[in-house]
């Protein structure tokens, strides 16, 4: 059935993966990638045809799940945000050597301008680093079509394929035409003769690395049809990729004169040097419009045949997102004259904790306890989630936020330097994502570190997805080697404030590692009833277990 519907760019990737017959989708939530997984999850749950959609504990786990599924001959999609790929990098880089069996597509959503991220790293560089192809759509429909192409490419070349999108495209909603849905089929396990390809001991890995390098010309031959050289009539050209391609395309409608400029339109990497050469032969000056790092700009600049303008020479800002305005300025087009900006000073309306959020009560207890033990000026190591908002004034309760799971290890590092009490604040989902190994090391180091786990029972910030740590936090903490009497579970509500402060103080005073769990469900999750079903089932299960084991004398 052919359908036309409205979809976000990131959702279009999820729809396409479903329609291209994937057997499984995996991911870890992270803006702006989250809705891609959610779109395919919705379709898979609706189809009830044996496909799977599974959130993973972190991006590396998600990637390995996809690789394992591919090993069995099925198609797999794995989704994450750009910094999530750092977590999955070990799996990603090495899967280039093993190759794939069933098609494996990695959707990675970059965040130029850092709308909700800690950096604006460019995933195209990581595809290049791993010697893997990367497709870069520029419209919602291309998100869909390129996903199909990526699966075909992955199976033809037997390598994972990256699909790179950016925030503006991920969260652009437009009409989408879908193709007929394919039923998942399996290529079956890899032939026995190729088993050693998957065993990356040095002798095999050396051979597979050569294989991967030998594959590069074929890889380029496959990506080249997606790239295009459009001749012009002047010696000044533009090189376009991603949103640069989208914005320029729009300007072209309004300024037909721009068609005089030769254009190099890039939608797939690696880029064939012959194509670059042909383009450079037509121009003396090039303007490069691409999101994030100066990838094309570097390549074209290195050849030294044309003056290359972009982020490196100041034609465009070195950081941040592209915009139609920036393109116009660089192209020397007159910007529209609109209404004057308001002269009144407009203070920023910063995001804040929801009214009644349990994190606020938890932070209140942590800050009071620190003051009570004479450490009111203590530096607290924070982590990634809604609770990161506590870094803002006036709360200013956390003093470092780096990456998922860093809070615990950084606090241990500080404690090892003699800076005590050392406090880490981490959410339940982030704890499951990367906090576990850090807590294992904390227990082993035996230093005075207090780990505060803010357990709101869901992945709050990205839209209350299920947390893999649900109902397991205490068991996880004990399992990492934290002594039973150094684990406390508290209810962060105003009524419990005094008791919570006292408990927190005891943890701070303990000379070894201790864990304080503040547990109260996210109020957004309560409002939406996200865990209602789960809690009802869990209660019924407990009642049943209770009756079954009841022994009367």
């Amino acid at each position, binding site marked *: 059935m052919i359908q036309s519907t*409205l979809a976000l760019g990131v959702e279009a990737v999820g729809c396409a993966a479903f329609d291209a017959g994937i057997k499984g989708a995996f991911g870890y939530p992270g*803006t*702006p990638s989250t809705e891609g997984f959610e779109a395919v999850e919705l379709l898979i749950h609706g189809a009830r045809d044996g496909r799977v959609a599974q959130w993973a504990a972190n991006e590396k786990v998600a990637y390995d799940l996809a690789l394992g599924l591919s090993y069995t001959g099925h198609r797999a999609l794995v989704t994450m945000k750009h910094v999530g790929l750092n977590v999955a990098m070990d799996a990603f880089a090495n899967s280039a050597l093993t190759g794939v069996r069933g098609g494996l597509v990695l959707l990675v959503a970059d965040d130029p301008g850092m*709308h*909700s991220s800690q950096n604006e790293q460019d995933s195209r560089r990581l595809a290049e680093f791993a010697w893997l192809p990367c497709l870069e759509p*520029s*419209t*919602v429909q291309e998100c869909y079509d390129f996903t199909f192409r990526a699966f075909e490419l992955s199976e033809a070349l037997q390598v994972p394929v990256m699909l790179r999108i950016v*925030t*503006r*495209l991920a*969260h*652009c*909603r*437009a*009409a989408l035409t879908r193709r007929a849905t394919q039923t998942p089929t399996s290529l079956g396990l890899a032939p026995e003769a190729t088993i050693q390809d998957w065993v990356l001991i040095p002798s095999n890995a050396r051979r597979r690395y050569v294989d991967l390098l030998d594959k590069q010309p074929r890889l380029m031959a496959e990506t080249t049809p997606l790239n295009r050289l459009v001749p012009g009539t002047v010696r000044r050209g533009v090189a376009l990729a991603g949103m640069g*391609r*989208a*914005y320029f*395309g*729009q*300007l072209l*409608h*309004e300024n037909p004169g721009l068609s005089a400029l030769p254009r190099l339109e890039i939608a797939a990497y690696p880029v064939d040097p012959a194509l670059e050469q042909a383009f450079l032969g037509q121009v003396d000056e090039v303007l490069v419009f691409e999101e994030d790092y100066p990838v094309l700009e570097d390549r074209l600049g290195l050849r030294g045949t044309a003056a290359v303008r972009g982020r490196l020479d100041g034609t465009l800002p070195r950081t941040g997102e592209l*915009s*139609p*305005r920036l393109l*116009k300025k660089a192209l020397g087009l007159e*910007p*529209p*004259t*609109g*209404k*004057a*900006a*308001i*002269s*009144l*000073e*407009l*203070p*920023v*309306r*910063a*995001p*804040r*904790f*929801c009214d009644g959020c349990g994190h606020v009560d938890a932070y209140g207890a942590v800050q009071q306890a620190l003051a009570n033990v004479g450490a009111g000026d203590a530096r607290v190591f924070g982590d990634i989630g*809604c609770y990161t*908002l506590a870094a803002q004034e006036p709360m200013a309760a956390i003093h470092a936020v780096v990456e998922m799971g860093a809070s615990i290890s950084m606090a241990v590092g500080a404690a090892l330097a003699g800076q005590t009490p050392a406090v880490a604040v981490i959410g339940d989902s982030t704890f499951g994502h990367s906090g576990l190994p850090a807590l294992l090391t904390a227990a082993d180091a035996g230093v005075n570190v207090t780990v505060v786990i803010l357990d709101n029972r869901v992945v709050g*910030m*990205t839209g209350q997805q299920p947390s893999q740590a649900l109902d397991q936090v205490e068991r996880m903490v004990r399992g990492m080697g934290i002594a039973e009497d150094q684990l406390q579970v508290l209810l962060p509500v105003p009524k419990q404030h005094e008791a919570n402060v006292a408990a927190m103080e005891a943890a701070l005073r303990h000379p070894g590692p201790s864990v304080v769990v503040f547990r109260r469900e996210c109020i957004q999750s309560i409002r939406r009833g996200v865990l209602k079903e789960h809690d009802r089932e869990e209660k019924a299960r407990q009642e049943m277990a209770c009756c079954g084991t009841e022994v009367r004398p």
Partner: protein
Amino acid sequence: MSESRIHGIVLSGVGGQGVLSLAQILLEALRRSGLHALQSEIHGMSQRGGSVHAQVCYSKVPLTSPILDEGGADLLIALEPLEALRYVSMLRMDGHLAVSEEPQMDMAGYPPLDDVYAALKAVRGAHLVDTEDLARRLNHRQAAGMALLGMASRFLPIEDGVWREVIAQRFEAKGARVTEKNLEAFEAGRGLIHDPVGA
């Protein structure tokens, strides 16, 4: 409307006010009117009570850019007066604003309300509505969004029937009464603009 240029609508408000769902209604209505349309939104931290804004671009020619240039928007729909002021410079000289007068003041440094209103009233093409009063009169607590959409509809190339269809579909799952109340709020807003210029 123009044969070649991008037209655009900016929507703004505070997280939780329904900016994104208004944008989606607009997108669907424009699409059903046979136009090319795109919507851009930013999710993430902005939904925790921070400023939220979305853009809807529409055109007779195919669109690839989901964002507008400053000074390129025809219409601004704002669910909050301070959030309206932030985007006035996105409007063309002949652009219009449909703005709720109802402030959300739970933030640091909110300017004096009178200054906010005065700044808005000084903008040509500004149409302010006391949505709090309207909601009371209509006995419909969440009338603001639909009323603003009704005001905006006077400046948009969308037929009455299409609006009714799209709104009805949007609230279908919530029952006939909710749909009726929302259509009523839309009509009330529509009635507030008597003589649209440049529609």
